[in-house]
């Protein structure tokens, strides 16, 4: 038997793979850029004292957490233009999908972080005359965010892997490029091995960072939020 590995043809087209990696990072970065503030907003609304707001935002969050991201992507790319006439290129559709999808997950991370802060912190902030937003911004969030970092980075890892779905709407991400090269070179094993290696190179340090921060927080006696 003995499969003869031939990486030469892959490395000849490494620039294509790297261009794909760049596009993957663009989608991941963009989804974080929009998803994080959106997630924070959703978390704050979900903690509102108004029940209707709490419930409706909660339903939205759960909807995006429990439906498959590929269905969401198809919905934004194929269904939205048919229903509303809003057309998006593959990049925009992917960005919108993953911003919203990740914001739903970030909302839950934020919420977990916020509710993990002891009630006494809110009371001390209010007792010196701080408003809800001042208390949130100056007292609660700085403490909550620290506890959220590990859960947060876990989401980043998940997100970057999930963005491989954008290849299905012909956005030229790393997986899409790998597919193309595999078809033109007939070397799928080599191509996908290298592609996997590229994901690993980006995400492994992130994963190590999670472990390190978790250890540090445990040392200072602070919990982490999952």
């Amino acid at each position, binding site marked *: 038997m003995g499969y003869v590995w031939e990486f030469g043809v892959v490395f000849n087209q490494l620039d294509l793979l790297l261009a794909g990696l760049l596009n993957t990072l663009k989608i991941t970065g963009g989804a974080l850029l929009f998803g994080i503030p959106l997630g924070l907003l959703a978390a704050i609304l979900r903690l509102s004292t108004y029940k209707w707001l709490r419930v409706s935002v909660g339903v939205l969050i759960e909807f995006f957490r429990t439906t498959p991201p590929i269905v969401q992507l198809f919905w934004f790319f194929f269904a939205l233009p048919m229903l509303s006439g809003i057309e998006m290129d593959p990049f925009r559709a992917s960005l919108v999908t993953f911003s919203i999808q990740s914001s739903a997950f970030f909302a839950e991370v934020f919420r977990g972080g916020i509710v993990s802060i002891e009630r006494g912190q809110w009371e*001390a902030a209010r007792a*010196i*005359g701080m*408003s809800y937003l001042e208390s949130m911004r100056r007292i609660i969030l700085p*403490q909550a965010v620290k506890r959220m970092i590990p859960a947060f980075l876990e989401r980043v890892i998940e997100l970057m892997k999930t963005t491989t779905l954008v290849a299905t709407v012909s956005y030229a991400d790393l997986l899409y490029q790998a597919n193309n090269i595999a078809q033109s070179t007939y070397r799928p094993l080599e191509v996908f091995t290298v592609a996997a290696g590229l994901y690993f190179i980006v995400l492994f340090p992130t994963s190590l960072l999670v472990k390190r921060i978790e250890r540090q927080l445990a040392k200072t006696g602070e919990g982490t939020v999952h």
Partner: protein
Amino acid sequence: MSLEILSCRNLKKQFVENQVLRGIDLQINKGESLAIIGASGSGKSTLLRCLNFLEIPSSGEVSLRGELIGSRQNGQVLYQERDLIPIRAKIGMVFQHFNLFPHMTVLQNVMEGPRTVLKLPKSEYESRAISYLEKVGIPEKRNAYPSELSGGQQQRVAIARALAMEPEIMLFDEATSALDPELVGEVLDVILKLMQEGLTCVLVTHELGFAYSAAQRVLFMHNGVVLEEGSAYDVLVEPQQPRTIEFLRGHSRFQLPSPKNSQ
């Protein structure tokens, strides 16, 4: 004539089924020091928390300097958060568990109110914070984090944090109950100094000896009402109500004898 700072009329507070305050009338005058004593569950902490609206009273009225807090509508007083925020800024509160902000240094904790709420310029909020840290006796700890301090030091920082708002009145909610016995003294010393300087203070406390020597007036609460009220001597040494007598007896059941050859 004495100037009224904080008062409440027929104040009631109900948590679901549980009526914690059953109609409290109270007036606190400028420069006065008032101690509230009573068993756990008598409503004394709830009363304090209703006075700065960390709890919203179920009914009754609270006034600051004679002005009703909230707006009266059909015989009911309604409270809106935006009206309560400036009120809380004028009423200092010290908690049993200190509740310092753990992500800030001692100095930042004390500066936070003058900075974020009063919006003073940097030079002012910083010097103000330092002067209050000096007042509570720990200016040298200004760059430490709360977790690096003893309980007594943390509580003194919490007092400085409340004082930095230059409130009209200070409320102490069992300020020494969470402290190791040997740390209680340093906190009581600070509170005593503030009282002697004429700061209006209300303290909920289990330290009856301190209440006796520091407070001008003592209030005994039982089951959500004020059962007995008067000078420290009248309430603590010659109480009239059977409940007060029973409560005080429970507190003085175990005492160390004086040395046999004491001078």
